[in-house]
């Protein structure tokens, strides 16, 4: 089943979810390591370029993810959720979708405004042009801060999201985690 069903996610949603999850985790680790002040400068340069290429990949997948989310039906919430829990879940998911777009966009803005003017050469295949923003130390610092703050906010939200999924699986024993792992209509 590619598309979402009435109470199950389709494979497109599931694959996008886990691909983006993997990218977010990897990009957070990469972003942390590459900004350590004592890192070898050559390694740092290369890690930044990998971060940019994977970051643009994440942006592309997140745009598809949001469009897919807007165009798809949403499986009903599992039974046993209170109204408040449903609203909290909805809010976290909306915020996650927004941040998965905002984090790479601020990264793109930071690369675009940097006075280093390093081209974004996507996996050494194609140049992704800079955004039409003026280059200056002030703009670069602003976008750097925005990128870092939003990225760590996203990390916190991802942890909350994962903790909630684990709580549902191991404490409440419901299908919240499982239905993001395999696409299957629940029996009966």
């Amino acid at each position: 089943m590619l598309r979402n069903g009435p109470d199950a996610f389709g494979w497109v949603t599931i694959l996008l979810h886990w691909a983006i999850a993997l990218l977010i985790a990897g990009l957070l680790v990469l972003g942390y390591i590459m900004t350590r002040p004592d890192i070898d400068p050559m390694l740092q340069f290369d890690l930044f370029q990998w971060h940019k290429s994977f970051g643009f990949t994440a942006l592309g997948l997140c745009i598809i993810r949001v469009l897919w989310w807007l165009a798809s039906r949403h499986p009903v919430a599992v039974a046993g959720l209170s109204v408040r829990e449903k609203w909290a879940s909805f809010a976290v998911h909306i915020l996650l979708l927004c941040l998965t777009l905002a984090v790479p966009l601020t990264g793109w803005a930071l690369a675009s405004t940097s006075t280093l003017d390093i081209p974004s050469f996507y996996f050494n295949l194609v140049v992704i042009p800079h955004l039409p923003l003026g280059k200056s130390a002030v703009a670069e610092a602003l976008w750097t801060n925005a990128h870092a703050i939003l990225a760590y906010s996203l990390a916190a939200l991802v942890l909350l999201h994962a903790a909630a999924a684990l709580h549902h699986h191991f404490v409440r024993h419901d299908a919240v985690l499982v239905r993001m792992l395999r696409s299957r209509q629940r029996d009966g």
Partner: protein
Amino acid sequence: MPVRLTTITASLMAVASFTAHPSLSQAKAPTLDDAAGRYDIDGSSQINFKVGQVGGGGISGKFTKFSGTFQLDRGDIEKSVVEFALFPETVQTGEPRIENFLRSTAVFDTASYPKIVFRSTKITRTGEDTAQIEGNLTAKGTTRTEHFDATLTKWNRRVIGFHIQGGVYRTRYDMSVGIPIYSNIVEFDMMVNGQKH
């Protein structure tokens, strides 16, 4: 702008007629032989370089501390010797973070290799006022043969100037960081002036 040797010769002939001792029998026309001697490369020289980047543009910069000599052979320019040393620590690009990166172990590693040295091994005249300079370039502990094209731009009895251009593959010197975003070729475009010793 290149100045042709013939032009120099003609103007020097004109100047020669105004010299203090025109009556002496040495009043023959000056030739390149008169340029023979040792010149110290002076601070008016411009050691500019550029590394292109994908999509256009690139990093342009210069080195501000260097030294060297031209030893022009009397009668045979091809026996002349050019020696040049520059201090990569003095690299300037207009962006301090790029300069620090160039000084770091990723590129010049100026802490371990403070000097880049060139010594010519062969000079081949390629035209009336041009020559190709072949020599050994030592950078970051590696010595390789490189070629530069020189054009005479200025010459009088005290000063000689050359426009020297050439491309150097940086991979040869363990400076391959950033390829292919940044070109492997460092294009040098130098105005090198010498003062007669």
